């Protein structure tokens, strides 16, 4: 193998696939990144067996070939190099990779590429790896990214309950919905498929929130004019996303990325049962002000189980009402922040985990949000004002402060 590429492109590709490298595996080759030179492209690949990422970047291939080298060493080395062309050359006999860039040279001991697990692909760019068969659909890249950002954070990180570490993705008629919950809060997002091509049948799968998070991260650098191709296997055990890079010749680009993830085989909890059906108090506030007030209160709340108390007071006459946020730390003191609010219904008090509020408010783009509450022990619903009624809904279970 003899190939050269741009440092920025290689660094970009390595940062993308690096997220799939197994951090603690008994199989040494899973700590490596596969580098394959073929068809005037460089394929970079990594997998932890739950998720696998292939990334193709532009390269000048003089001799085809492949090798795997330690992911961390390669990543950190390439990141340290100047933005100049890098020459990579494989010494087949010793299975070592020689790298040369400007006045830096290095050799890395590798493991034979044949020991690397085979990763399924769309079949578009590779004539040897098996192509993934299944239901194919095309989804708008920016829309998909936005949905994932507003839902995936609510999933659990507790591996002992795998179902809740997933995001329920469902296609019903012409709508795509995503939902995630860690048991304490729930995020539901739904959109009209519009010009996207759905699966043509109703279908529900649970995808690991971590995989979707990676997808959203990668697609931030994608060409939003080209749809993301999604393939779900007939047995509903694997999902593949294909993302296209930007077509300009800018530096730090990739050609395309394919992310393959296992799906979670489980029944997602019925969340419709816990979505509040009505409210006694409806509070509309400026999102940025609300977020800031919560962040300030959090400084005091983080020492006290993150608990902040919200007190809603309706306005008198035509005056505005207010939302008061209070946090107390036994050792450090306390804080009271007040923001204007449009209050419909009766005054009420409710306590939330400040982190949950920060998480959801950070993902809302609209300038105003609505908080709907019934009573202090019942879940509160948060929606952005100006989005369709069933487009985005976040539900948080309140905390019970000590009496």
């Amino acid at each position, binding site marked *: 193998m003899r190939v050269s590429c741009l440092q920025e492109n290689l660094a970009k590709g390595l940062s993308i696939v690096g997220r799939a490298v197994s951090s603690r595996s008994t199989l040494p080759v899973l700590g490596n990144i596969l580098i394959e030179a073929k068809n005037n492209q460089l394929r970079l690949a990594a997998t932890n067996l739950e998720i696998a990422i292939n990334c193709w970047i532009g390269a000048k291939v003089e001799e085809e070939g492949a090798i795997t080298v330690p992911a961390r060493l390669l990543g950190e080395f390439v990141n340290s190099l100047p933005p100049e062309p890098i020459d990579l050359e494989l010494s087949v006999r010793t299975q070592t990779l020689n790298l040369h860039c400007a006045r830096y040279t290095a050799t890395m001991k590798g493991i034979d590429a044949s020991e690397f697990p085979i990763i399924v692909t769309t079949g578009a760019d590779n004539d040897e790896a098996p192509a993934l068969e299944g239901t194919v659909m095309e989804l708008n890249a920016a829309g998909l990214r936005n949905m994932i950002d507003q839902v995936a954070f609510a999933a659990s990180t507790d591996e002992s309950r795998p179902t809740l570490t997933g995001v329920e993705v469902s296609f019903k008629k012409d709508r795509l919905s995503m939902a995630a919950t860690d048991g304490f809060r729930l995020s539901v997002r739904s959109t009209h498929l519009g010009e996207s091509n759905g699966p043509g049948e109703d279908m529900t799968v649970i995808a690991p929130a971590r995989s979707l998070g990676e997808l959203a991260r990668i697609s931030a650098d994608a060409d939003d004019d080209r749809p993301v191709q999604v393939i779900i296997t007939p047995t509903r055990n694997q999902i593949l996303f294909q993302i296209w890079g930007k077509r300009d010749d800018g530096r730090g680009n990739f050609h395309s990325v394919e992310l393959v993830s296992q799906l979670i085989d489980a029944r997602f909890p019925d969340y419709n049962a816990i979505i509040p059906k009505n409210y006694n108090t409806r509070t509309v506030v400026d999102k940025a002000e609300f977020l800031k007030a919560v962040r300030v209160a959090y400084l005091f709340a983080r020492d006290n*189980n993150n608990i902040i108390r919200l007190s809603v007071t309706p306005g008198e006459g035509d005056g505005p009402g207010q939302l008061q946020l209070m946090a107390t730390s036994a050792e450090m003191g306390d804080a009271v922040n007040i923001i204007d609010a449009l209050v419909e219904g009766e005054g009420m008090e409710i306590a939330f985990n400040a982190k949950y509020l920060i998480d959801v408010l950070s993902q809302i783009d609209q300038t105003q949000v609505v908080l709907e509450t019934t009573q202090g022990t019942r879940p509160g619903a948060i929606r952005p004002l100006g989005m369709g009624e069933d487009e985005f809904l976040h539900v948080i279970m309140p*905390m019970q402060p000590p009496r």
Partner: protein
Amino acid sequence: MDNIRKIIHIDLDAFFCAVEELRDPSLRGKPFAVGGSPTGRGVVASCSYPARQFGVHSAMPMSQALRLCPQLIVVRSRHSDYSAVSRQVMARLRALTPLVEQLSIDEAFLDVTGLDRPATLLARELQQTIREELDLPCSLGVATNKLVAKIANNVGKAQAGGDGPPNAIQVVPPGQEAAFLAPLPCEELWGVGPKTAARLHELGMETIGDMARFPEAELERLFGKHGRDLARRAKGIDERPVTTHREAKSVSQETTFRRDVSDGAELRQALRRLSEGVARRLQRKRLAGSTVKLKLRWSDFTTPTRQTTLRQPTDDAGQIYTAVLKLFEPLWRPGQAVRLLGVGVTNLDERPYQPRLWDMETEAFRRAEAAYEKERRLRAVVEALEARYGEEVLRRGVEG
């Protein structure tokens, strides 16, 4: 002079025995003890005044009590009866003032500062009411603070003598606190355990008066912050209020082994089980504590306790066990026989609690929610009243 308080300490005389005598009047005047069985490993929970003449006292093994007093009548304890009678007594106290701090089943502080009549008179009336209405003897201490009132009661009971209940009332007038405490041995003072007492004796202090005369700065240097507290107490100063909240002050669990245990693995296993039990109860009550206590009883009945303070309150079994093990290891020598082990957590704080969304469908959630709503409405009423009539209008009684 306005801020002089009037505090009463009340203690029912040989309470369990008094209740047993009500049930079976033939016990009156006889040496008898309430407690566990004499054949097993039971101890004396309470003993009648005639039994005390033989040297029997509470916490003594029943078998030893019987050796001292072979004609001793042993009565198995009936705890639910005692609780029921105790509630009747406490109700009489609360009829006088809502400011009642119940210390145990048979002991309480009352703050009667707000009542016009002299505290001594109130004490006499209380004693009479409890004797006439419930047929129970009790002793009272009257002073300007909790510390002196309690010690006064101890002194009054000790001076009563005779072979019946003391029925004592001991009054320490305002300004006389230090003079009253001065002749008493250091050990009478709250916070002076055997270790501190030994150290005080070494330094030439035998009485509380000796401690009061000792330079305060020196005491503080020798005993740290504890030294400063001791110096204040020795002078009869105690500003602790009578607190009516009956908060759980500690959560603890102990176990008496069927046979003394000297196997390290078995003892540590027991400590782990006790830590788990304590953690479970803390979690159920949504409490966390920052002080972990170990109680240990050797086969000769000496019962050392050790405690340590954690940086953060905990309700975690692992953390409690780790802390308790650190207390246990330096105390126990391999092969030493242990009769009883206890683990406790104090310095409790209520924890904010984060329920789950799906908890709403459970019965336990609905019960907790109803209690929470009741509390919230009550608080709203109290706040409204306070806003109208000032903060002193209401005080919390005892919950439940």
